């Protein structure tokens, strides 16, 4: 009888312990469920400011394209357009920071696929304009195109930052663009084929010089200065 009473007490404790564990698991499941819902809502809320930034940048770029098409090779318009390109470059970096941060969640609303493509086209247009200015303004600027994959590439993230730093230090005479591959954009496929892009990151300077693999800031400056030595950072 005593043994039975003991067993009963033990069973009561065990049940109570199991109950605690089950209740804990239930609470965790509810919190995780709510987190995913919240995460999805937060991702949706982030879409609007990113799209606004892209639209704003697109408008700025179109304005620069218009200016360039009217008078791109004058001594007055070249510095103006270069400055404008520098501003757009910074804005593109900001958009990229916003988008890469926003894409860290799971699951993502379907709008993100379109945002990626919109941004890629914006960047392509930027690169095309900067190449035009490179040609029309007597090579007073230098362009760089970096390819990176749409999977994890830690070197690419760092390379992007370093390109942004070189651009700032060059007073925006060095204008980098980063292009995400694997987005189902024909123009990007074409560029990959033209430059034979097989590894990431790969840098294409002035549309001609291809450098594969990760480069530190000083290496970027050194290589860029080989091809254009009248950048201010080449003389320092």
């Amino acid at each position, binding site marked *: 009888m005593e043994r039975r009473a003991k*067993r009963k007490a033990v069973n009561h404790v*065990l049940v109570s*312990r199991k109950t605690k564990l089950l209740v804990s698991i239930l*609470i965790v499941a509810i919190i995780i469920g709510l987190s995913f819902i919240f995460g999805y809502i937060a991702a949706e809320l982030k879409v609007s400011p990113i799209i606004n930034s892209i639209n704003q940048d697109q408008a700025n770029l179109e304005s620069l394209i218009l200016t360039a098409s009217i008078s791109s090779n004058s001594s007055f318009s070249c510095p103006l357009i270069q400055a404008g390109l520098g501003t757009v470059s910074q804005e593109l970096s900001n958009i990229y920071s916003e988008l890469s941060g926003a894409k860290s969640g799971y699951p993502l609303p379907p709008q993100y696929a379109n945002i990626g493509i919109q941004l890629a086209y914006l960047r392509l247009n930027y690169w095309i304009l900067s190449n035009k200015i490179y040609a029309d303004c007597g090579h007073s600027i230098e362009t760089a195109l970096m390819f990176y994959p749409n999977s994890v590439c830690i070197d690419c993230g760092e390379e992007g930052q370093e390109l942004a730093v070189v651009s700032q230090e060059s007073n925006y005479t060095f204008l980098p663009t980063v292009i995400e591959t694997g987005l189902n954009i024909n123009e990007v496929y074409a560029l990959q084929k033209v430059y034979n892009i097989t590894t990431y990151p790969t840098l294409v300077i002035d549309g001609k010089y291809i450098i594969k693999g990760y480069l530190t800031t000083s290496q970027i400056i050194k290589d860029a200065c080989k091809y254009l030595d009248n950048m201010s950072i080449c003389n320092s």
Partner: protein
Amino acid sequence: MDVFDSVLSYVLMSMLLLTVIFWLIVYFDTFESENNKTKIKNYPKVAVVIPTLFEGKFLRNSVDSVLNSNYPKDKYNIYIGLNERTDKITRKTAYSFKNRNITVVDTHLNGKSRVMNYVIKNKLKDEKLILSLDADSVIDKNLINKLVIPFFEKKDVGIVAPSMLIYKPKKPLEMIQKYEYLFNIALRKGLSMLSTLLVAPGPGSLISRSALEKAGYYDENNITEDMELTMRMLINGYRIENRLDAISYTLPPRTIPTLMKQRFRWYSGSFFNMIKYRKQLVVKRDDENIDRGTISLILISSGLSLLALPLLGYYIYLYLSKFIFQLSQVGLKFTLSYQSFVNFLFSFNELSFIGIITVIIAIYSMFYILKNINKKVSVVKDGFWSMIFILLYGYLLAIAWTAGFLNSLRLINKSNGTKS
């Protein structure tokens, strides 16, 4: 983040959240469950055994705390055990007491366990319970009254552990240890409620004399004899209980080297005893005084925790080297730029939400424990020292933990060598 990183992050965060919530639920039960209604008519006789070494004049504080307790004066005797290495000041202090119920026993033996066993086997009278008290510890005046209660409420109680606190902490290292001891009180109580309390601390634990005799007294070759005795009591079918309101105070290590030395001994002993009794602790038994499932988890997590320090070191190295390299390339201004801020802001996602909830529940849990044990909470002071304890102190202990494990392997080897 790639798929593997994502899944790992979600799994780890969920496990952390589960641990925090489970323990909070246990603590809700813990602090409500202590029974204060049991009235004792016939207090059992208690032998207060105080082994000594180099405690000096603090021995007087220990003995005085017992003499000032509310336990009936005719129901306890104090036995001060002198080690062969006990210093002159401690000896002089021991012999200075004139009370009739204080006996000084010069054992001429070395080792705390030997001294305790000698006193218990040869000098005790008809006491049924033994209060083990270190000479650098003091007890609250109600400690003995509280500790005897479980012996009346439940059967087969072998040891009742007190809540141990730091004696008058002042310096930063003592303050951090104060919070460590506070959280350990809650953990100890929670573990005792889950029938997995593996250590009843030496200073202030009340032991059944008959259970001690049946279990075979203290192991004289063990460096953490209190933990070893607790495990042996459990294996012999006795319950290990805990009273939150029975408070003892101990002098903490005051410097980092002495702290590390103490913890190194504790953790060496912990691993040694866990390895020594691992099979007996998880085997199926009739009395169910041990929760095998939770014990198994404790043993497994103790093993896994050894990975924590090298992993932590690896990730700190990885992060720091990347950060330093990035800093060298793009500079501090860029690293702390608007883009970094924007990236951080836009990175807020479901994992961030789970992390925030976990932190909120953990902080609530922390203050709940402090309020229930300390009875009052200072948000600023308690919050500050708790954060220091959580964020910094753990890494220090992790070094002693890892070193303790390695030393325990050496002790096991030595012990196996001695047997053969």
